[in-house]
């Protein structure tokens, strides 16, 4: 697993007052990385930079060990499936025509596969795309991303507008997709509980900076929530305190697991909680 599906080093991009600062990221092939961040944290910009859909000021990007992303029609992008939000497929055709158009872009376009996903997602083939609901448009885009034998999926908020049942189905599809060790996924989402189910790595972005990028299970193993009274707060080691939530009847503190003093009950927590604690902590420091 020495190959990297995504490797970016020292990415910089300035967009008015928004800036991506010195961002480095790598995703080993065969893994799923979840990208988390507030609205406007730069997730979509990062994805655009990775796909070379906008010029970067400096830095290097290689996808599937290929550095020349985006300069010809048979470059590495043939092996990449893309979903971006909002689902911006051309409005005036029906899904069947869309399939024909997409087959002009992808050399390995597989119409049977595409039809399979249309059936699976129950997409009406006769309706024009602008008559489809937001969720269905998203499903259609997911279908196009999965129908050309991609090795890497780059998904920007693909679960937006999907109902919980379809989301579950979609996560399952992603799980099946990565059963092949050569397949990798980069997925951004606001629904952290979804990411918790499928990701191997979690990257958190805040205001154009990558705050951390770590193994998901390591995060879950490393941090514990301790519940205590406000008076007990001082007994906790300050240095390993990630964040605290003070309530009227007690406090919740996120701590490094190893540093919880004896006598406190520590609890495992969810990825969502960890991220929220970190985000709050980041806000307070600003």
């Amino acid at each position: 697993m020495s190959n990297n599906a995504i490797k970016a080093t020292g990415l910089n991009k300035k967009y008015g007052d928004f800036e991506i600062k010195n961002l480095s990221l790598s995703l080993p092939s065969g893994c799923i990385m979840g990208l988390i961040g507030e609205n406007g944290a730069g997730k979509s910009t990062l994805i655009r930079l990775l796909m070379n859909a906008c010029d970067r000021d400096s830095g290097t990007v290689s996808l599937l060990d290929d550095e020349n992303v985006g300069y010809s029609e048979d470059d590495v992008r043939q092996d990449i499936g893309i979903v971006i939000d909002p689902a911006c497929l051309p409005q005036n055709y029906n899904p069947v025509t869309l399939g024909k158009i997409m087959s002009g872009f992808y050399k390995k376009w597989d119409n049977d596969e595409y039809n399979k996903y249309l059936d699976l997602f129950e997409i009406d083939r006769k309706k024009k795309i602008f008559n489809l609901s937001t969720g269905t448009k998203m499903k259609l885009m997911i279908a196009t991303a999965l129908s050309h034998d991609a090795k890497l999926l780059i998904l920007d908020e693909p679960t937006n507008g999907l109902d919980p049942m379809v989301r579950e189905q979609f996560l399952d599809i992603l799980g099946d997709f990565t059963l092949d060790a050569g397949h990798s996924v980069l997925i951004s989402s606001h629904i952290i509980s979804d990411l918790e189910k499928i990701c191997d790595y979690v990257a958190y972005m805040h205001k154009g900076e990558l705050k951390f990028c770590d193994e998901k299970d390591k995060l879950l193993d490393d941090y514990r929530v301790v519940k205590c009274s406000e008076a007990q707060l001082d007994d906790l080691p300050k240095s390993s305190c990630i964040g605290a939530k003070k309530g009227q009847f007690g406090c919740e503190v996120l701590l490094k697991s190893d540093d919880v003093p004896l006598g406190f009950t520590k609890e495992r927590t969810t990825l969502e909680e960890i991220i929220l604690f970190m985000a709050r902590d980041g806000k307070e420091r600003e």
Partner: protein
Amino acid sequence: MNILLSNTSDMPIYEQICSQIKGLIASGGLKAGDALPSIRVLAKDLHISVITTKRAYDELEKEGYIYTVSSKGCYVADTNSELIRESRLREIEAHIEKIASLAGSISLTKNELIEMIKLVYEEGDDNE
């Protein structure tokens, strides 16, 4: 085979997997030569990362419980299940010693302690 991860346990996830697979081997649920689920299938099913699963399997392989046939998968090694049982028993003994010393520190009698253990088992029965 069942592998049940606990959310309340303080044990890291990969250790939980290790210990459960060891348990399955000890109890005879997994026999020598049985194929283990592939890393990716297990990771997908348990909603944990591939890396963690791989680490657990590596650990098990290092300890000699399983072996890997490249490009085929992992298989249970021909270890003596008695051996695992004994190591478990030793673990239990160590825990009991700790309990006894803790009980001694608040002068809890032997009978009270046995009562407590019984209670734990009864609760477990009720839950089932």
